[in-house]
């Protein structure tokens, strides 16, 4: 029903575009148009689709809760809690569509009939109102077209609002995500002290598990210390940057300053392919190839190496990040004005002196920005660490031992059995929001650094 209605509105909008345009061509024969003919079409189509669709959306949003209020009115005298009312309403709905399997009381049956009736009325009313609006707005718009009113401005305003609504949607979704993270995290911090979370050195949520009732507060105190996770996250990110910064930066400099056009043409896309490899592929590459390889080498040298090591995960993550750094630094180095290079060469500087003393310092803010973006990527990377760095949260600075990261722990917490309202589950939100704050912070710094760099040359 809804689908038919929406399809009808959209088809009608297309048709009215056609008619609007045609009408404009007719007007053209007698007087000068106020805009190109297609604007007449857009105008009519916008007036056709926008009001009807807005009403349709609003209706669809509010109808269920209005119907619910009507149904539950009959139950107000029973002094039921909110949850019980919700249960009754679910039962009524199920009964109405015929999927209810419990006991059917008279009262329930009555409500279900009322529900069906209300739904029927609501549907007919919706169709009627939307048709009325279509007729009204179309006739209004068509009269405006007939009068050859100004067409360009209304269409531009309409487009502006469409764009505004799109960006508003994006912003609202972001805010919604942040708030849902925040609320769950706050609930978590009601069960676990924020101090214990930030400064505790043991992460072992599994031990708080009890079959029924609340877990022991003493246990809670010692189970959710996030220090090992932060340490592991930054440690692995550090190893990754040790791999990615030198290789990425040097290859970026080579590509932008040294490579001939032929080399650049092929080398750059090949490096960028690295960025296109799915992280899960890197993950099993790290777990199945690099991890055992590191262990073997370590054992041969008489070192104790676990098969899931921070080194393996960090090294592979570094490889993943190389194209980020090389591509971004290539871009910022290329953006350094040619006349600075000329100035340096004309003083008799060699290529390497020019790179070291003029180009690199000039591009440094941009390079720092690209490195910070890469760090925030490394901190948020999940798949590689889940597969290759181990899941036990060891507090260690030994790259040959296994360690765990924030992202990996979130995965561990949220796969398998979990209960909502359990501190163990909620801890994922606390971890999530800490990770969000860290990456947000890095991104803000990175962007402001890059921006300052831009201002210098434009």
């Amino acid at each position, binding site marked *: 029903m809804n689908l038919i209605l929406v399809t009808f509105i959209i088809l009608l909008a297309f048709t009215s575009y056609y008619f609007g345009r045609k009408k404009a061509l007719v007007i053209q024969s007698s007087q000068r148009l106020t805009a190109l003919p297609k604007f007449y079409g857009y105008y009519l189509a916008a007036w056709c689709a926008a009001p009807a669709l807005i009403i349709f959306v609003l209706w669809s949003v509010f109808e269920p809760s209005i119907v619910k209020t009507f149904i539950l009115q009959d139950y107000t005298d029973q002094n039921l809690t909110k949850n019980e009312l919700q249960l009754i309403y679910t039962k009524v709905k199920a009964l109405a569509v015929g999927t209810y399997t419990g006991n059917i009381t008279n009262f329930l049956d009555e409500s279900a009939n009322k529900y069906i009736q209300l739904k029927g009325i609501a549907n007919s009313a919706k169709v009627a109102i939307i048709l009325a609006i279509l007729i009204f707005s179309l006739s209004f718009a068509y009269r405006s077209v007939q009068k050859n009113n100004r067409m360009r401005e209304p269409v531009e305003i309409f487009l502006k609002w469409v764009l505004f609504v799109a960006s508003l949607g994006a912003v609202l979704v972001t805010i919604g995500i942040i708030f849902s993270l925040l609320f769950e995290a706050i609930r978590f911090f009601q069960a676990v002290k924020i101090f214990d979370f930030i400064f505790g050195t043991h992460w072992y949520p599994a031990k708080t598990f009890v079959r029924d009732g609340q877990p022991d507060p003493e246990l809670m105190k010692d189970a959710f210390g996030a220090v090992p996770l932060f340490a592991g996250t930054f440690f692995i990110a550090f190893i990754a940057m040790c791999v990615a910064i030198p290789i990425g930066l040097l290859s970026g400099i080579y590509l932008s300053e040294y490579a*001939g056009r032929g080399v650049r043409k092929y080398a750059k896309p090949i490096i960028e392919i690295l960025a296109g490899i799915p992280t899960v592929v890197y993950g099993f590459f790290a777990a199945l190839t690099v991890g055992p390889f590191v262990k073997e080498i370590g054992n041969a040298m008489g070192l104790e190496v676990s098969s899931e090591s921070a080194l393996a995960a960090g090294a592979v993550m570094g490889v993943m990040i190389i194209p980020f750094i090389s591509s971004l630094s290539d871009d910022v180095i290329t953006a350094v*004005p040619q006349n600075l290079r000329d100035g340096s*060469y004309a*003083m*008799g*500087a060699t290529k390497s002196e020019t790179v070291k003393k003029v180009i690199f*310092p000039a591009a440094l803010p941009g390079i720092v920005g690209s490195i910070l973006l890469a760090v925030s990527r490394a901190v948020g990377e999940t798949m590689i660490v889940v597969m290759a760095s181990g899941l036990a949260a060891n507090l260690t600075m030994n790259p040959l031992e296994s360690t765990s990261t924030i992202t990996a722990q979130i995965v561990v917490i949220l796969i398998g059995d979990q209960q909502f309202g359990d501190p163990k589950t909620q801890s994922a939100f606390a971890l999530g929001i800490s990770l969000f704050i860290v990456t947000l912070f890095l991104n803000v710094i990175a962007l402001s650094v890059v921006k300052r760099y831009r201002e210098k040359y434009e």
Partner: protein
Amino acid sequence: MSKIKAENVNVYYGSKQALFDVSIDIAEKEVTALIGPSGCGKSTFLRCLNRMNDVIEICRVEGSIKMDNLELNSRKLDVVRLREKVGMVFQKPNPFPKTIYENVAYGPTIHGIAQSKEEMDQIVETSLKKAALWNEVKDRLDEIGTGLSGGQQQRLCIARAISVSPEVILMDEPCSALDPIATAQIEELIDDLKKEVTIVIVTHSMSQAARVSQKTGFFHLGKLIEFGPTDKIFKNPDNQQTQDYITGRFG
């Protein structure tokens, strides 16, 4: 006395020829101006004199350019040494995004000219004085060079160029991005500098060529049409095309 002697210089960008058989004698401690309409090859020729065309991948230079009997257009030439002797000032002021001091100290550092900090300070001071910039910047040598005004930036670039005591300075339309007052300052500077160095200047402004130069070369469509004393070129040119250009009939 001849400082630079170019013979039959041909320059190609890919398959397109930009200069045709240019032969010119540039005299020592004089200002030689190269004039001509846009795209006539005067900048291309200038860039042959310190091998800046090397930077352009598709550029090819043929012919002989000798400076004090040293062949410049040779694979064996040490380009770094050449550019120490032949400095260059560009159309758009291009100080490095470093401090004023570092900008001037750049050349002496890479060529290892100064042995001590005091010597370097001395070089920086002398160069800035010669570039008539010392009084304006002596109290803020550690400020970024790109923060100066356009004319000051260009004088900073001149200071940078003379910091390594070059024998020749090439100037590629050094005043085209400057206002008249800054232009006058630069022209005055050129007049001072020619006591010690040979200057080759490319300019769009014929009045500037007439004011600052002793010899003038007129380029048109990649050819050196006429070359001679500035007075003669401006007052009594041999060639009709030169006459037309000077009097503003084309270009």
